[in-house]
C-alpha cells in the first residue's frame, strides 16, 4: 500500500457527503456533477447549476489562497487530456452520472442502477490505468 492517507480521505469524503445531503435538503437536487455541468448547456437552463459549479471553482480558489498544496502535473500530454475529457463527457451523459451522481448520491439512495454503474466505471478505470500507464506509458 502506497501513499495511504486515511484521515484526509475520510474527512474529505465526509464533506462531500454533507454537501450532497445539503443540496438535497435545501434545493431538492442530486449533487451529480456531470449532470449539473451538462445541464448548463441544455435548456431549460437552471440557474442553481451555475451557482453550484461556481461553488466548486471557489473552493479551488480558496484552497490555493489558504496556501494548501495544489498538485500539478507538467508532463501530461494535452492530446491525452482532450481524449480523456471527451470520453468522460460522452460516457457520463450516456450512463446518466459520474462518481458523484451514481457514486456518492446513487449508492446513498440504494439505487441498483447506480451500483452497476459504479462497479463498471471502477473496473473500466482500473483496466484503463493498466493499459495507459503500464503498457502505453501515458502517465507516470
Amino acid at each position, binding site marked *: 500500500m502506497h501513499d495511504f*492517507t486515511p484521515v*484526509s*480521505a475520510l*474527512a*474529505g*469524503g465526509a*464533506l*462531500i*457527503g454533507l*454537501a450532497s*445531503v445539503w443540496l*438535497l*435538503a*435545501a434545493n431538492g437536487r442530486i449533487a451529480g456533477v*456531470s449532470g449539473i455541468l451538462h445541464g448548463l*448547456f441544455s435548456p431549460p437552463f437552471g*440557474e442553481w447549476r451555475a*451557482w*453550484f459549479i461556481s*461553488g*466548486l*471553482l471557489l*473552493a*479551488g*480558489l*480558496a*484552497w490555493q489562497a489558504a496556501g494548501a498544496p*495544489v*498538485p500539478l*502535473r507538467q508532463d501530461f500530454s494535452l492530446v491525452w*487530456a482532450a481524449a*480523456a*475529457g*471527451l*470520453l*468522460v*463527457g*460522452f*460516457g*457520463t*451523459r*450516456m450512463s*446518466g*452520472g459520474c*462518481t458523484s451522481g451514481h457514486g*456518492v*448520491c446513487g449508492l*446513498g439512495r440504494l*439505487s*441498483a*442502477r447506480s451500483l*452497476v*454503474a459504479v462497479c*463498471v466505471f471502477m473496473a*473500466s478505470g*482500473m*483496466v*484503463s*490505468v493498466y493499459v495507459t500507464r*503500464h503498457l502505453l506509458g501515458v502517465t507516470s
Partner: protein
Amino acid sequence: MKALVFALGSGFVFGTGLWVSGMANPKKVLGFLDITGKWDASLLLVMAAAVAITLVGFRVVLRNPKPVLEETFELPQKKDIDLPLIAGSAVFGIGWGIAGYCPGPAITALAALSTESIVFVAAMIAGGLLHRFALAPRDG
C-alpha cells in the same frame, strides 16, 4: 436568491471535500485505480465516508414532503439497468483512468489554471454535447 446561495454553498463544501480528500489530485486518483502498481486505497475511504453520510442523510431529508427552499425533490426516475448505463460507465471509466479526473475534481482543479484541466473540461463539455447531438432523442 436564497436557494442559489445554498447551491453555491453546497458546491463550495463539495469542492473543499474534493481537495481535502485528494480526489482533486489526478496522481492520487490514478494511484487508486492502479491495482497492479503502487496501489493507494485512500479513495475507497473517500467514497465510504461520503456514502455513509448520504445513506443516512438522504433518508432523513426525504421524510419531509419537500425541500426547504424549493417545491419538489427532483430525483432520478430511471430504474432499468440497460446498455447505455453499462456502455456509458465503461467509456467514462476509460477516460477517468487516462487522465485521473472525473467531472467534479476536473472543475475545481480549473481554479489552479493548469492547462491540462482547462483542456480536459472543455473536451468534457464537448463530449456531453456530442452525446446530445448524436443520441439526442433518448437523452434524459
